[in-house]
């Protein structure tokens, strides 16, 4: 009962007309980003046009959900009350195989075992009925 009544108190993403398709895709358990129909570039955060060639013709392409840890930090101070029970917690910058980098949390690993270039894969975390976050878990390198 406590479980079903507990509300998610952590900050939620700010949804805009530009990033709505990104969050809609995560809810369907798909990691999608804009890909330029002209030059093929894939970019993040969502933009009204291709930052490379300024084309406004793009497709929300399905990504592999695979990447590597590019950098990471461990918070020893909670800036939000809702994170107080989580410290120390990690925030990783994942470089996706397709190029863009996103911030996330790496699950199923001790903070001191996180390494640069560690292979990771996406894990869809349904934190509320409306919002699914793209978190990551380590994957075997191949």
């Amino acid at each position, binding site marked *: 009962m406590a479980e079903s009544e507990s509300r998610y108190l*952590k*900050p*939620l*993403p*700010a949804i*805009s007309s*530009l*990033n709505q398709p990104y969050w809609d895709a995560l809810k369907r358990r798909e990691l999608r980003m804009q890909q330029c129909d002209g030059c093929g570039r894939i*970019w*993040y*955060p*969502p*933009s009204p046009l291709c*930052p490379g060639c300024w084309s406004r013709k793009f497709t929300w392409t399905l990504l592999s959900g695979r990447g590597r840890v*590019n*950098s*990471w*930090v*461990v*918070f*020893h*101070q909670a*800036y*939000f*009350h809702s*994170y107080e029970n*989580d410290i*120390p*917690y990690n*925030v990783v*910058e994942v470089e996706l195989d397709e190029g*863009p*980098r996103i*911030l*996330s*949390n790496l699950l199923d690993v001790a*903070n001191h075992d996180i390494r*640069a270039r560690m292979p990771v894969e996406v894990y869809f975390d349904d934190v509320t009925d409306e*919002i699914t*976050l793209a*978190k990551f878990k380590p994957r075997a390198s191949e």
Partner: protein
Amino acid sequence: MANFDLKDRTAIVGVGNSQYGRRLMRSPIDLAADAIANALDDSGLSRDELDGMIVSFGSPIGADADAIAQLLGLKLRTYNQTWAHGRFTASCIQWAAMIVNAGMADAVACLASVSFSGMRRPMMGGASDREGAREAGGGHGEDPAYGMTSPGAGAALVARRYFDRYGTNSRALASVPVAFRKHASMNPAAIMREPFDVEEHQQSRYVCEPLHLLDYCLINDGAACVIVTTSERARDLKQPPVYISGMQGLPGGSEEFIWAYPGLGVVQQSVFEYEAGLQPVYKMAGVTPKDIDALFTYDAFSILAWIALERFGFCKPGEAPSFTQNGRIEIGGELPINTNGGLLSEAHIMGWNHQVEIVRQLRGEAGLRQVTNAEVIQWANAYGDSIIYRK
């Protein structure tokens, strides 16, 4: 391309500051009044001769330009104000130089007045900080949905990336805050004056790992002001002018990140070996990094000093860890940095306290901290803006 016509055409003719301290229990407008009045006294200009103002970092942490002007009874022809971020210090002074050159004002007070410690704790990075909710995220890389918040976290992300890329660590980085605290120990105005060593740095708690508490700047209250006018007018005033010899603006774009130079490979930056080249600020001033007698940089976090050294060609990417050892960046060393103690130890006035110290150094007024024969001093930041001053 830097405009060589502006070289030495403007100067700082007065500097002033309020008391620096924690929980001063004085409003930012009150502190601003001290800084402006002290800068006017220093310059010999009267209140009515001050007809321009640029405020860096207004509300909610500082005083806004319109309120300062109204409450202090100023008669301004031109004023402006930046977004509440510390990266705009040089830009404010650069705009002042352009404004007086354009004749839109004759004497411009550039200042910041802040009450960080008067704010509720979560102001920076917490629930009441709106940075992370900006469209496309926060300016320091914030993404609160994943717990990524606070300016220091963005700097920590850069530090980890830098450590990994260049094979260095927090112990090597300690030399930066250790040096700045040593400088602060010679500065009666500094809030933190007790020196510490590398071991104490290593033992201080992590805030956002890999950055320790002693890698973080102070949280305090205070105000600092500099007055800019034309060099022609400056020569008739009370103090010897400190000339603005060269400048370059604040760069933006996806290859830039507030705490890193292009090529480092954080946020959406590409990865490549950055080459500083001869930056426009040097071309405009007609000097090279070898001519710089002291360097001042925005040190909200210790790692930023490394990034600034490499961005401006004092050393190559990856060389800052060795460059900053063995007293080289201390007073008496080859390139003293932040002789006031910086944001890390003197006070966090967004770099405005550094501008005041630069002027005092070039006038020979820095007391125990005086850099011998200081003639050319540079303000240069991790994020790429810069001013070169000369006496």
